[in-house]
């Protein structure tokens, strides 16, 4: 078992390394941007890129370095020639700094000169809190709705719940939030229309969680509901539950003591998978509601072309996803003793 876990962790890190490397290279292959402006602006811009280590600056032409990005007007007969630093050279520098100094670089444009890891650490709390609240809301709500639907199987309650589930499971959280903000924020004015700043009172800040948590978890609520309903319906039709009833247990006792216990067993791996899904969903949602988390940061750093932040953010999302994947696999073994991880035949 221990060997299996270790192997999975090593593989996860290898996978993360490959994902980050491919991302780095693909992102760096994007066309080089130029500002609109005269020579003074162009020189200033390319000098800045030179200082940031993104371009080479020579006073002679170097065709072997590929496409010339910019040639400054001649001064004293000499121009500056700017070429992009080869992507693999940038990759080598980036990797060396991480391995030798655990230096993930600094922000270039988003928060100039601030360490990328610092920026992430300052924001990760918002995202984690948001997602934990979303799980805390979605799991019980989804389970309760699922149980209710199962208990009222093929009755009007079940039909309403099932229909609602089908509708809401199809709506992405970032679409849903627009409607929710419109109704509860602008029209009814019950809740904040955007994320309250840290300077706001405790009450206002707490109310700021309601809309994003609700929208982020709504898909999960539907998923849990559907899952639990299906599991419970299956268990309730099983023979051992019939046996329990014939032994004299009330319907409530049979469901609570036997049916629910078995139906809830597979939900834990599903919860872990859903958490990973929530992280992905929070990216756009954070942007729309103005939550200063790492999901929004991911989108912003892409827009800013602030790649050092992007790669740390990417590393966190990738690592979390892979580790949760391992946890999901391991959880099967804990929940169902019949499953043995890495056991030999």
């Amino acid at each position, binding site marked *: 078992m221990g060997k299996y876990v270790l192997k999975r962790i090593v593989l996860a890190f290898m996978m993360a390394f490959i994902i980050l490397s491919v991302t780095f290279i693909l992102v760096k292959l994007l066309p080089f941007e130029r500002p609109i402006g005269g*020579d003074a602006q162009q020189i200033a811009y390319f000098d800045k890129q030179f200082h940031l280590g993104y371009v080479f600056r020579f006073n002679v032409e170097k065709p072997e370095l590929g496409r010339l990005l910019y040639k400054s007007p001649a001064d004293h*007969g000499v121009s500056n020639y700017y070429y992009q630093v080869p992507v693999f050279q940038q990759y080598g520098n980036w990797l060396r700094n991480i391995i030798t100094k655990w230096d993930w670089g600094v922000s270039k444009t988003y928060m100039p000169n601030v360490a990328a890891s610092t920026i992430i650490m300052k924001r990760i709390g918002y995202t984690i809190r948001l997602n934990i609240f979303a799980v805390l809301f979605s799991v019980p709500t989804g389970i309760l709705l699922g149980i209710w639907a199962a208990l009222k199987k093929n009755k009007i309650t079940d039909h309403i719940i099932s229909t609602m589930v089908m509708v809401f499971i199809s709506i992405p959280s970032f679409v849903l939030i627009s409607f929710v903000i419109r109704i509860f924020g602008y029209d009814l*004015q019950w809740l904040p*229309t*955007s994320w309250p700043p840290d300077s706001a009172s405790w009450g206002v800040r707490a109310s700021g969680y309601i809309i994003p948590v609700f929208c982020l978890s709504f898909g999960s609520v539907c998923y849990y509901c559907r899952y639990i309903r299906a599991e419970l319906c299956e268990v309730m039709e099983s023979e051992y539950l019939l046996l329990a009833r014939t032994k004299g247990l009330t319907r409530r006792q049979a469901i609570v003591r036997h049916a629910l216990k078995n139906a809830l067993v597979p939900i834990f791996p599903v919860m872990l998978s859903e958490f990973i899904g929530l992280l992905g969903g929070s990216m756009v949602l954070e942007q729309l509601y103005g939550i200063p988390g790492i999901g929004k940061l991911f989108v912003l750093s892409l827009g800013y072309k602030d790649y050092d932040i992007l790669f740390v953010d990417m590393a966190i999302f990738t690592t979390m996803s892979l580790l949760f994947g391992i946890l999901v696999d391991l959880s099967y073994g804990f929940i169902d003793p019949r499953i043995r991880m890495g056991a030999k035949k």
Partner: protein
Amino acid sequence: MKKTLALLMVLAMVVALLAGCKTPVDPTPTTNPTTEPTVTDEPEVTPPPMADWDGKYIERDDYKAYIKHDLDFLYATIKDQLGDSAAAVEAAVQAGAQAIDFAGTVAEIRAAYANAYQAILDAIPTYEGVATYKKLPNSERTTILGILERYAVTTGITGISLFENGGYVMYNPRITLGTENFIVGYGFGVLPEGNITEDLEYETNEAWKRYYHIEEHDDPGTLNYLNDQGAVVGDLYGYMAASFFTNFMNATKDGYDWVPELAKEKPVAVNDDDADGMCTTWRFEVRTGDDGLKYTTASQMADRAAFNNRPVALEDYEYAFKLLLTQSNQLYRGSELANTKSGAIAGAKAYYDGTAEGENEELWANVGIKTYNEGGKNYFEVTFKEEQTQFYCMYYIASSLYMPIPKEFVDLVTVTNYCGFDKNATTTPVDNSLVVGPYYVERYDADQQIVYAKNPNYVFADTKYAIPGIHVKIFTAAKEDTNAVFNEFIAGHFDVAGIPQEYLNEYRNDPRTRSTTGTSNFKLNVNATSPETWEYLFGEEGVVTQTPKEDYWESKPCLANRHFVKALSLSIDRLTFANARGSIPSVDYLASNYMIDPENGISYSVTEAHKKAVEGLLEDTDGYGFSLELAREYFRVALTELEAEGAYTPGTKENPTVIHIEIAWMYPTHEELYHNEIKNFLETAFNDESVCGGVYQLSVDFWVGNDWSDVYYNKMMVGQFDIGFGSISGNSLDPIGFVSVLSSDQEISGSFTLNWGVDTNDPDAYPIVYEGYRWSFDALYNAVNSKAIVAQGQNKASLTFEYTPIVKNDDGSYTGTLTVKATLPDLTKFNVTSIACCNYERYYNGDGTYDEFELTDFTCEDQGNGVYVITFTVPADIAADYATGSGTSENPTGYTGFDFYYDLEFDGDTQSTYYSVSEDHFIVD
């Protein structure tokens, strides 16, 4: 007898024939400008028999009317400035009109126009000599700008203007605006002159309830404008910055005044020796701690807080410039300041280039920035590279980038962290900024909010900026939802918002709504090149850019036809288009905020010169350049001409010839936002049955690149387009300088030419006449902005150089020649003083300088008429040394060049300068 009679009859017939068949008036005009008009004295001319009309889409008389209109328009364009040529030109115009009347076919009519055009050109002498109109009164310079603009509009190099980016904006009723009417170039004066009279209910922090609540889409992550290239940081930095001079609304609330802010007086000329109001060195008294001026910071950190209320020292003003210009500080705006041409400070570039490793006091001594105390007064003195008026001295030096800052504070917080966060984000811009402006940073919550509070130490704290603070919410939702800001405003969360397109009808007339003018006019820029011109500009050996054969762009003949382009312009219903988007319909090239008299706040758009320049675009239209009928008429004219020249062959109604035009846009969203409606305008106008009966069809296609700037760099600036959407904005206080971007000369336009097809240095391209002489656009542009050397009406350099590469001699030495030709020999004295040889890689010192070898063996032969031939020899040992390889690159020879130092006396000015040849090679044996 019969024979005699017959002979007499034949003789009579010949005489009669000779008398009756008087040749039409020779359209070739006289070149003598003093010739009196004679047309009115001549007897009635009988027209010759006309050839059959060969135009299919327009009647002959109608076509003639349009061509004659072109001739009349041309005459109207130049007649005010003709001087002695007036009579000859009038005669040429009348003769041309008559020749058009007598012409039969399309080709004949066009030839008649061409002859008349040439006759007009011949009648007006071209300018020769040196011209400088920079010091002319503003009214006269406005006239010249009008002449340049009319030329640009007529030749199509301004593109097809669509709209100005102004529009409608709503203010919370709790805001008292400085003025109810928008002041061009100033605004409503919300912060300096406005006030807030009620609390914002939504704000939960009691202290901020009367702050001005606005938003930014993104957190810029820094307030360090010195190292930022965008506009957002500039705005945010601007709240807390003060400058030497600023603008405040005038007493009548219809304009603004320039007011000393950190300065105590307007600049005083130091070296205006010729008393013309222009000079290079200006000085003015500045406020310091002696006057009670103090710094402010809200930092609670002891070391930073120690600077709060610290008096401003005189040397802090000088340090602000040194901070910017020291290259090792790696500040974006410093590089920009060092490399700028407009308002360049003497010695700034040399200092910047020489400070890659840190400050250099020796070089700083040559920079045109000085502070000193004289007679108990604190002075700031600036020396520009070129002479400036008092106003432009104020303008160039008024930037908030030059706000004073103590060196000790920058040393404490470091240049890297100045006005920003430190690497671990433990200090914020609150801790790392020290200001003297109207507000200071009170709180900075990254990605959430930036809060400013009123600075009690500000110079005008008692009389201006009554609003106690500014709350900037970072509102990223606005990036995803174009209505988000407006929704927040309506909910009472923000104090100001623009009105989105879909709410325009509902809120346009709301009492909270105000209209504003814009800062930029957006246009459809046109590639009007012929294949030959395109090849010259962008082909494999293009002068603008070099394009491989397989990537050649196919120029569209229709876009080279001015009538066709005019028809496109007339097809666009700008009023409907702009109204639907909350912007301002416009046919102008320059937006309303371009000030012809910035000191008095007079926009160029209200001048008579401008109105005359654009009258051709507005004639017989709805007032915004739209007339569907006229557009169709001009399409008929254009198709008639294009067919006559063989550019297009008509199809059939069932299978029409399709004319494809591609419009390149910035963003994919522009397809829905702009393209579809523009496409509809153009196709509706052209594809109407009445234009050509359906034998041609116009198809307008959409293009968008990966990045918004692709439309500039990958399309318009490299000729890979038919029509491209875009706009260039420049210095709004210098519209005469800004029209440089219309030039086809890349040195003048700074490589920002967006419309192609006209050589703007060709005085024959379309007549520009000023004070009786013909000019090219480039020549008159240079004359009005600085100094032009003009020959045959064209802009020229004082000297032209022709280098013949070095050739190896038998003894191992090398010989080369440089031929120098003076454009105006009578005004030129040339003397070469030395020649230096340099290997640019091997002898580069790393600080922008090079070790050079001075050649002593050279001759300079004066061949007369301004031609000088310099023959020089590089000794064998030097050549061998340079040919052995640079050792610093993979190139075995490195790049060897020559600097030819010379003294030039031109038109009374003397200068010592050099000409460089940068790429020659010695042969590696």
